[in-house]
């Protein structure tokens, strides 16, 4: 079996003062071993919620259900807490958006790098440190031995994110979830960190779920892409297929928002998608994107579309749109 993660109909809901917030509304996804899957979407589309649900880091009041939530043959939802703790951190790890606050200010980097591997794999402190130094070197942290005794506040944001990447790799996980790891960084550092994640992912053969709102980032690193909108996957395909043949009006809209050097004329209006994301409290009727979609018909707000295989494509290209592919093609 080449699958490391298989998700069917994942739902996450959170009780709020205004009603139940259904942040994730039935997601079907899978990740193959050693693959880089990018999840793209606007703020509040449920992409972070999905990653938190996979890690089991959601607050207790959040309700997580799924038909299948299978990690390498293990059902994550029914796993006892202790086993779950062992998978999280050892076989699955996470890189967060905020490198400035994601490290504990009171402990040395060495301490924080080594604690998980010492706990999960029972290695000695010396062995753990040796691995930490190796991974810090691989992550491009200068003077790695010295860093072990340093505290987070002594490092810049970019360096801290490199430390977080090294930390995520400590236990040789099968899957790393990177939740917007470059969003909080300077543009120059962003490119370096992206390249680093891609390199290390290929070198160690780790599967990565890379969450971002930036389609430009996706183009550079993804094997496969899933576009999310309002708690659902609206389109998924290989990166190449998605860029050459975007089907869903939302994906097209997103792609049109990116200026292309040489192609987008200076001073010309950059496209944007009109309207706002619908409220995720309660049920949504019909297609969630209908009110912002420029090809939508009256049927769109009536019939809730499902994720369908795109018949014309050779690879696994799925789209959630009530308007058929051919009609779409004509409309665009």
């Amino acid at each position, binding site marked *: 079996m080449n699958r490391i993660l298989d998700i069917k109909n994942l739902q996450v809901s959170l009780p709020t003062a205004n009603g139940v917030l259904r942040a994730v509304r039935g997601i079907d996804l899978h990740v193959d071993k050693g693959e880089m899957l990018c999840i793209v979407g606007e703020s509040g589309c449920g992409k972070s919620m999905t990653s938190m649900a996979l890690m089991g880091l959601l607050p207790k009041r959040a309700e997580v259900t799924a038909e299948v939530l299978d990690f390498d043959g293990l059902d994550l939802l029914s796993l006892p807490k202790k086993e779950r703790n062992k998978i999280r951190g050892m076989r699955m790890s996470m890189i967060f958006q905020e490198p400035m606050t994601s490290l504990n200010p009171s402990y040395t980097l060495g301490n924080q790098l080594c604690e998980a591997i010492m706990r999960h794999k029972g290695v000695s402190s010396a062995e753990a440190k040796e691995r930490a130094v190796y991974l810090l070197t691989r992550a491009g942290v200068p003077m790695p031995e010295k860093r072990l005794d340093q*505290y987070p506040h002594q490092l810049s944001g970019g360096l801290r994110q490199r430390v977080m990447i090294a930390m995520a790799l400590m236990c040789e996980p099968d899957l790393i979830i990177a939740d917007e790891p470059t969003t909080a960084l300077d543009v120059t550092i962003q490119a370096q960190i992206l390249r680093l994640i891609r390199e290390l992912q290929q070198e160690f053969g780790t599967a990565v779920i890379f969450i971002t709102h930036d389609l430009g980032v996706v183009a550079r690193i993804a094997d496969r892409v899933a576009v999310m909108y309002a708690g659902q996957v609206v389109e998924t395909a290989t990166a190449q297929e998605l860029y050459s043949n975007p089907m869903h009006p939302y994906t097209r809209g997103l792609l049109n928002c990116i200026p292309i050097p040489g192609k987008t004329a200076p001073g010309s209006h950059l496209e944007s998608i009109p309207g706002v994301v619908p409220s995720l409290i309660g049920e949504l009727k019909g297609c969630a994107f209908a009110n912002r979609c420029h090809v939508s018909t009256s049927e769109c707000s009536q019939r809730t579309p499902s994720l369908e295989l795109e018949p014309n494509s050779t690879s696994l290209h799925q789209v959630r749109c009530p308007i058929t592919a051919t009609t779409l093609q004509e409309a665009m």
Partner: protein
Amino acid sequence: MLVFIFRRLLVAFSVAITVSIVSFMLLHFSGDLAVSIAGPDSTAEQVEQIRIDFGLDKPVVFQYFDWVWSALQGDFGRSYYFQDSVMSLITERMPVTLTLGAVSLALATVVAIPLGVIAAIKQDTWVDRLALTIACVGQAMPSFWFALTLIVIFAVNLHWLPAGGSSTWQHFVLPAIALGYYATPAMMRLTRTGMLEVLGSDYIRTARSKGLSETSVIFKHALRNAVIPVVALAAVELGFMLGGSIVIESVFSLKGLGQLAWDAISRNDYPVVQAVVLIIAVFYIVLTLLADVLNAMLDPRLRVR
């Protein structure tokens, strides 16, 4: 770290000098000392003689240095009222106050920090509400009333513990509970708030994502960061308990510094007041210094300041 401690020592030292000047002035500006020492029935010659004997004819600056020099050697002069040296009065009272303060703080810490941690973990459950209720009652109830209630229940009715005095350890139980209960609410609430804030932080999420046990997440990663402001508060509270336990000391007839200060103030016994003020100020300074050092040990970011 050594540089940090050295800097803090410099600050502490300059504060100590300031306090010593203030407490010296307290005595100096309290009227003509020669007249008050000589008493109402003395003649002008006697007053002059006393002025010379006590060195009160010299310039103020000289008097200050004389006083500091003797104070450093443990000589604070003689009490007007007790007919005893101020130092012997203080050394006699000090152990009582120190014992009471230390035991009360220990008691308060042992109750407040675990209670604050539990309240934060079980936020908005009955445990949390109960802890907050205890804190509210503690903050609202006057300490003398609580002390009297303890006496009525445990000394008068149950005869378990003595109501007053300081001869055995049992004499310290009720006063320490009364004083400790007074210090608990603020510490508990600060621990709870700190824990809630820290538990919601990104680095706790990181710790959880590493699959660490809940014990490690709460005690290693959260508590150490949450407890930093509590340490500073505890130092201030201990200082307050050493200097301000007058009420508790009176209720339990403990002969401590608080009661000595009260007696001295009501009898215009300035040398004693002056010495007590200075000693308590020095306690405060030392405690603040200790709290700073302890905090710097807990939080590496403080070491560079």
